[in-house]
């Protein structure tokens, strides 16, 4: 079985462990991920910040190429790429005139017919899709499932999970033996594209996320976006400096956690590529006491005022 695959630039650059773990998990499930031929960058935040038509044309070329290659489904593991592709497809489906214009820009005709899957949908549908699925090495750790912004928003277009308290990732993690915690920062922004231009703001926003996760006893933050990962992992030094404390919990890609539960060795999952070391096997699952006794919904509001 082969499925269309749009890796995006981060998976080929700063997030090799996401690619490795995704491919390893797919292989385990007997799937072949086939890259969109000659794919280009989706334009991410930069394109829509500076020019609307460019922000449509770049994803449109990806969608058109996937369609031309006969891909009925396209797995897009990066949440930012996923969002750009979905938003573009929705806008062009709604506006045939604009689609014609963009088709002229990219010199390719297309219908936006390819179904776009994010990594959670992919895992649900193709990997952990049966009840009797064997989990040889349960991932029995307390985890904070971090969705970030672009997997769930804007809900009208993505139509994926609840925008305020999504549960799909939590359910997947339970399936592989983990214990997802109830926490307040599931869908708060990590600072995204400001990693370089306003690192101080990334340190502030990502720090709040790690603080809530760690205070509630999570041993790891589970992520599904290379941007969130790089902010929570590579920017840890700046985060710790600003917060005045040393956060120890690693950020782990959902595909790494699932791969680990499926018995894939750490090396094949790129577990050593993180800046914040993943030492979960040593910690085992001790019920780290959750310090915060307040319900998750209340802290989010409080943090925001601070």
């Amino acid at each position: 079985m082969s499925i269309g695959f749009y890796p995006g630039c981060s998976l080929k650059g700063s997030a090799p462990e996401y690619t490795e773990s995704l491919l390893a998990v797919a292989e385990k499930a007997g799937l072949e991920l086939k890259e969109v031929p000659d794919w280009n960058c989706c334009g991410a935040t930069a394109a829509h910040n500076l020019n609307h038509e460019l922000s449509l044309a770049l994803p449109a070329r990806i969608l058109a190429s996937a369609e031309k290659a006969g891909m009925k489904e396209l797995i897009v593991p990066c949440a930012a790429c996923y969002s750009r592709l979905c938003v573009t497809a929705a806008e062009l489906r709604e506006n045939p005139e604009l689609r014609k214009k963009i088709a002229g820009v990219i010199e390719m005709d297309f219908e936006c017919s390819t179904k776009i899957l994010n990594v959670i949908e992919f895992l649900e549908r193709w990997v952990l899709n049966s009840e009797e699925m064997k989990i040889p090495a349960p991932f029995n750790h307390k985890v904070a499932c971090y969705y970030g912004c672009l997997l769930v928003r804007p809900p009208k277009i993505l139509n994926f999970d609840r925008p305020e308290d999504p549960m799909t990732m939590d359910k997947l993690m339970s399936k592989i033996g983990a214990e997802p915690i109830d926490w307040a920062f599931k869908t708060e922004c990590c600072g995204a594209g400001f990693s370089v231009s306003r690192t101080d703001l990334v340190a502030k926003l990502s720090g709040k996320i790690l603080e809530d996760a760690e205070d509630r006893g999570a041993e790891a933050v589970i992520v599904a976006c290379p941007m969130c990962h790089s902010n929570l992992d590579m920017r840890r030094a700046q985060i710790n400096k600003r917060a005045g404390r040393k956060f120890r919990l690693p950020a782990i890609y959902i595909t790494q956690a699932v791969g680990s539960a499926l018995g894939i060795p750490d090396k094949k999952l790129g577990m050593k590529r993180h800046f914040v070391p993943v030492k979960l096997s040593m910690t085992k699952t001790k019920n780290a006491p959750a310090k915060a006794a307040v319900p998750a919904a209340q802290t989010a509001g409080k943090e925001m005022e601070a």
Partner: protein
Amino acid sequence: MSVENHSHHGPETLSDKIYAETGVNAARCYQCGKCSAGCPLAEDMDFPPSVIMRLLQTGLPINEEKALKSYSIWLCLACETCYARCPMEIDIPKIADCLRHESLRRKKANPKSKDIISFHRAFLDSIKYTGRLYEMGLIADYKARTRHLIQDVNLAPGMYIKGKLHIIPERIKNLRLMKKIFSKTLESKEKTR
């Protein structure tokens, strides 16, 4: 979408222009403030999102100028929280996109936003020349634009060791088309400035 708020007979306001371009109507905002309450960076902005909306609603050139010159529009992360929570379902991030484009076109971008804009431009340059984001090139380009030469130099060796930094860019085959896409979109707009 409703057009009743656009029945005034004065000259075209910025809000009219946004509505014409995007179909998003700032006049529908009733100032509940939910966008400002949920915005992760509201406290760092000069005007929180709901105030930007109000500035647009007045239709006064002096207020529109404030919105276009604001730092807020560049600090917007496009996290979409405001849009997800707006009771009137106003696509505020789309308005922010529109304000950024207009702010650049009229050369009114807030001076504090220089680094943020430089990053976006460096990012797009990389795509134009290689078809994909070449992270090393992006950082070099950003540093050249902003003169932040030593920023993050201590991050590079670790990234390289962990296989997160590549010396040679990946190039797509159809670079000719990539350049054309840029000349037909971003660059054609910029020429008319």
